[in-house]
């Protein structure tokens, strides 16, 4: 059984259809890159997978381990192993990163029928992960993402990814707003999480990110559909020729 199956997905936002029958199959261990021009529906796909309100699914389905993902609340999707790294992580003043991560991890464990993690065990775990991502301890005591730089926010997303150990990670424009050093740190963090059980869907506008996170498959999206799929060499091809050819094809 595939880990994540998107079948002929049609999605509307308000009165406008954004996805017009998108299909994508992701198996454990695979890294898929989704590329495409602005407005092709890449972020919409990530939002619908995570369960963001405001999107109306008018056709098709999304199966996660064979179960209907669209029937689950966003928090249930997270507990089941779906993780979205946000393009623009929000700031939550007054809620410390520390407190937030502990509450979220325990909520996920509780939902799966596992015991809650104790504060000392949690402390140890977060410290290890934070260290590997070069995240200073005092950042964890601050409000979630409050006063963080763009790079710090993205690293905080990867910290959470490492902590929650999801089965499928959707990385939405992880490279936006990052300089080359920040990008490398973030990509190293992601690569460290690659495993035969875990799948990743990397959404990006530019080929650059794929030099660091090398995909197994590349899909080109245009106007709400996947118009071409191939191996990692497709990304390089796109870098040469641009997206214009596909806009005509769609």
């Amino acid at each position: 059984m595939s880990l994540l199956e998107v079948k002929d997905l049609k999605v509307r936002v308000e009165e406008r259809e954004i996805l017009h029958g998108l299909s994508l199959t992701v198996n454990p261990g695979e890294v898929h890159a989704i590329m495409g021009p602005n407005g092709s529906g890449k972020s919409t796909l990530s939002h619908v997978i995570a369960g963001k309100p405001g999107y109306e699914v008018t056709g098709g389905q999304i199966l996660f381990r064979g179960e209907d993902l669209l029937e689950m609340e966003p928090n249930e999707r997270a507990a089941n192993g779906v993780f979205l790294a946000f393009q623009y992580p929000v700031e939550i003043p007054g809620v410390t990163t520390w407190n937030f991560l502990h509450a979220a991890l325990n909520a996920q464990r509780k939902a799966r029928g596992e015991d809650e993690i104790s504060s000392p065990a949690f402390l140890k775990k977060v410290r290890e992960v934070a260290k590997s991502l070069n995240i200073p301890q005092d950042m964890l005591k601050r409000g979630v993402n409050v006063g963080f730089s763009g790079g710090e926010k993205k690293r905080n997303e990867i910290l959470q990814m490492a902590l929650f150990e999801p089965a499928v990670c959707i990385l939405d424009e992880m490279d936006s707003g990052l300089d080359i050093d920040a990008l490398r740190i973030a990509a190293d963090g992601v690569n460290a999480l690659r495993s035969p059980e875990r799948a990743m869907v990397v959404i990006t506008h530019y080929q650059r990110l794929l030099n660091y996170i090398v995909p197994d498959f590349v899909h080109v999206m245009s106007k709400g559909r996947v118009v071409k799929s191939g191996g990692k060499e497709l990304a390089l091809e796109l870098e040469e020729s641009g997206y214009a050819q596909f806009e005509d094809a769609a």
Partner: protein
Amino acid sequence: MNVVAKTETGRALGDAFASARDRLPGKGKIADQRRQAFEAYERSGLPHRRIEDWKYTDLRALMREVLPLAPAPDAAALGRAAAAAKLRAIDGVRRLVLVDGAFAPDLSDLGSLEKGLGIRPLREVLDAGDGALSAQAFATDISDPMIALNGAMATDGVVIEIADGAVLAQPLHIVHVASGTAPASMFTRSLLRLGRDTNVTLVESYLAGEGTKAYQAHDALIVAIGDNARFDHVRLVEDSIDAFNISSATISLGAHAHLNTFGLTSGGHVSRYQLTVTCAGEGSKVETNGVNLINGTQHADTTLFMDHAVPHCASREIFRAVVDDRAHSVFQGRIIVRPDAQKTDAKMMTRALLLSDDAEADNKPELEIFADDVTCGHGATTGALDESLLFYMRARGLPEKEAQALLIQAFVGEAIESIASDALREVAIATAQRWLEARA
């Protein structure tokens, strides 16, 4: 129709005052003051929306009548009160319990008083004919009808004197418990006199005994803070969900004195807290903070009057309201800077969070400035929880109510953080937590 009902209600209360007179301590001058206060109340009756200060809290519509005075608590009532007080006990405090309008010595910690601390029931002070203390306890403005009514009807309370230089290591905890079996009203009045260079912390809790539902708690607190003294005050209203709590605090500060007062209202059907703070000595500092956490059909009103009468004083107000269902929160904050009060630094910020479409929050900040060299400001906002934050938190696995709870805690956090004592801050957080858990 209304007029007839009002007259009948008024007559019933007049009879109650007349018949209760022998239960109301204080003779001579105090008895005269009570009569004057009752006449002042009678002239207006229960306040209604056409009285500007009461326009959001129309007691004529909400309360309709003042219930008869609660009988003195019997053994069963005292037992229920003891259980309620125990449930909300705070470690390391000196507990003073008022049950159904009467001081309950057996439930109170009166042993081994610290040096410089004197505690007596108000009734005893009045019966003993202590003129100066009695006069101070009843020296409240009778222009407000409900404060006037309290002055007429108060049956008991505590009178606490702190001698110059005394620093109380142990906070005082006044527990107001309603414990009767029949709907009734209780009127209490307490006085704290802080001498020069004193440092005192007071906690007040409003509770109901098991099975006690509809009642009216009317309390008046009078505090005089001496020069260079510090007073910390934490007030927690956890009354029964059918109860009325119509209370006031009148606090004056001497020179270089410091007041830090915090109020949290999560209980009661209808509550109104009128807080009047007067900076009467130069160089004093005031922090007044508050939180309303209400739902269902609760109505909670905090009305603050901050009076800067002298120069070089600073005041800060932070107020937060979280309103769910069809509840109604009111914050009225008036800052007056009198002509002599140059170099006043006064700021007030009030924010309301509406959790439902039917929730209502009225914020009325007012500045009246008669001095020209001052720094004053106020702000008020009302809004809902940020959907993008909620989605982010849910995408990390938090169920909606838990995500809301974290955001609500953060929202009220700034006001709660103002509590100076770590232990009492934890008590306030635990009280807020109970409200959040009850709605989860």
